[in-house]
């Protein structure tokens, strides 16, 4: 019988000694923190909520804010993105807020819908990587939310049958996944 530490040392050898300190801690069952994640302030969360709601606004169905898609975005950034990428995202968000102050002397959250749209449009051009990241996360968070899946789309928890060719009815919504 070998100890966990022995096993770990062997694992380290197998990985060519490239095992990070954090991984070692994690494998040894200690609480691990893979580098400090970005702490999201209330102001940042509010800003993100409004920006995401500009990506997917309320139309004839509720938008991102109503669906709480920003919670998904914050969670995925915190848990699934390395710190560097988290920082790049929140930097992009700060720049967007700076643009709003510079152009309109107002926080993005206080702008009317038309000006919000203008700011996001500019950001889409000036900071493509951030915009695409933001859009992907918002779209995913929204269409995976209960509101997005059941109101904007149609969700079948248990379809019960499959038909490969049925007429698409006018006004019908796409299926949720």
């Amino acid at each position: 019988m070998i100890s966990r530490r022995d096993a770990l040392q062997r694992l380290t050898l197998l990985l060519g000694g490239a095992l990070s300190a954090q991984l070692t801690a994690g494998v040894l069952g200690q609480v691990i923190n893979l580098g400090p994640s970005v702490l999201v302030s209330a102001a940042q969360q509010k800003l993100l909520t409004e920006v995401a709601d500009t990506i997917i606004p309320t139309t004839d169905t509720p938008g991102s804010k109503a669906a709480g898609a920003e919670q998904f975005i914050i969670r995925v950034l915190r848990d699934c993105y390395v710190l560097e990428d988290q920082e790049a995202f929140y930097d992009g968000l700060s720049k967007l807020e700076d643009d709003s102050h510079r152009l309109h002397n107002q926080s993005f959250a206080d702008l009317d819908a038309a000006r919000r749209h203008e700011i996001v449009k500019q950001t889409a051009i000036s900071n493509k990587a951030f915009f695409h990241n933001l859009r992907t996360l918002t779209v995913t968070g929204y269409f995976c939310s209960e509101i997005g899946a059941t109101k904007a789309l149609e969700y079948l928890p248990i379809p019960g049958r499959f038909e490969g060719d049925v007429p698409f009815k006018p006004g019908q919504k796409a299926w949720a996944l």
Partner: protein
Amino acid sequence: MANFNIDAKKELTYDAIVIGSGVSGGWAAKELTEKGLRVLMLERGKQLEHITGYENALKAPWELKYDGRLTTQQIESHPKLSRDYPYNEMTEKYWMNDSDSLYREKKRFDWFRPNIVGGKSIMWGRQSYRLSDIDFEANLRDGIAVDWPIRYADIAPWYSHAEKFAGISGEKLGLPQLPDGEFLPPMDMYYLEKEVRKRLEKSFPGRVMTIGRVANLSKAAEEQLGVGRGPCQFRNRCSWGCPFGAYFSTQSSTLPAAAKTGRLTLRPDSVVTEITFDNDTQRATGVRVRDAVTMQDREYFAKIIFVCASAISSTALLMHSTSDRFPNGMGNDSDQLGRNLMDHHFRTGASGRWEGGHDHYYYGRRANGIYIPRYRNIGDDKRDYLRGFGYQGGASRGNWQRSVAELSFGADLKDELTQPGEWTMGLGGFGETLPYSDNRMWLDKETKDKWGMPVVVFDAEIRDNEKKMRLDMANDAKEMLEAAGLKDVKTYDKGSFPGMAIHEMGTARMGRDPKTSVLNGHNQIHAVKNVFMTDGACMVSTSCVNPSLTYMALTARAADFAVEELKKHNL
């Protein structure tokens, strides 16, 4: 008290021991218990209760945390598993931690090891096809490796036996290269698949497109209702575990059948470290087991042993079962143990866009695709490589995950994504890999895992024959899709590393001659007659079809033989 030791040994003695509880192990347990044997089934993974154990199975999209993504923590702690999609948010608890699953790669090998009762039968792709005599005769015809010791006629009744119980839905085609089976009704095709099928048959006589033959119950027959299974609900959540028991798994199918006999003992958390051997009788006597949690060692005894731990693990176990008689691993007189390591090669094909069909939609989520059986190197067709490939693929209509205009956002984007997108269709080849004696695995005795087992080293790769075949796999797909009327058809080749198809095979091959093979035509170790191996390790060639149905049939066949041999007192 004088009999204490005898009584204790009696308690640890069974008629048969089955190592592993996946597709093969489950079938071995079912067949042997139903034939009257008391069976101990050992599984190194943890217990996974049918239905209640599938924690994510009934979750709605908004009940998942990350829409399937892995956390940075999971990626760091699973540097190998996280390289490909089977390890994801919904299935992560079913796989073994990389830190427990130590192995070394001379060349990249993706080894997907489950950590649960049921093994990969929980997460498997469920595509179920028969091999044909074109496959069983291939090595002999090509003068490659060794000849299969069986032919289609030997296994055909066992395919039927397996299909009737497992429940395979599909369409009969009457093709020599893909024999028909005992099918439940075929699943429906999408509108675009029906269109493509028509055009394909016109443009390419001899090539056929059919719906995938899949171990999902399009309709539950008596055999399945009898073990508590229900029909497929078309949720497309199979790999999360099915609370309806609608696809074949150990838990849904073979385990309840075996348990019903009252003769099955299942022990999870049981790492088999060695098969013990008696030099006087030249038979295996039982197994040594290390408890995965407490690390306590125990020994069990049986008249016969079925090794069904999956190709790599079964082979590693035999390699680790050394004795004076077998210094290089049990049954390894031929030095073939660990050689001829094969997996299907795939991840190449083509896809394209269909114009129109906007008024055609669908209902339900079909967990199945279409299948184009092999047509290369059959009949008069001759290519610059040996063997062939089949295609899996399918049509779909764009969903909210589709790509949109670069700058699109706001109400326009939302409106666009709440409507279905264009129809598209893709074909991906699954190719046969030849057996190469130096594509192999062995044990690194210097490095041991936490249960004290030496770690496996992999040294295998696809070679010229496979690389030539891949060109056809991509180009034929493009040609067929274009002929069928798809636009913007593009080929792709994402590269294929052994292990990625999770069809590991060949490391203890069957054969007629003990000098060149490990197992005989009944999956019996040539030199240790009471040990049978019926997982992927036994395969002599890979064919191009998904192999699990063949393991089911071979296991049932070997179990039948083993029980007959026991009755004749030959074991």
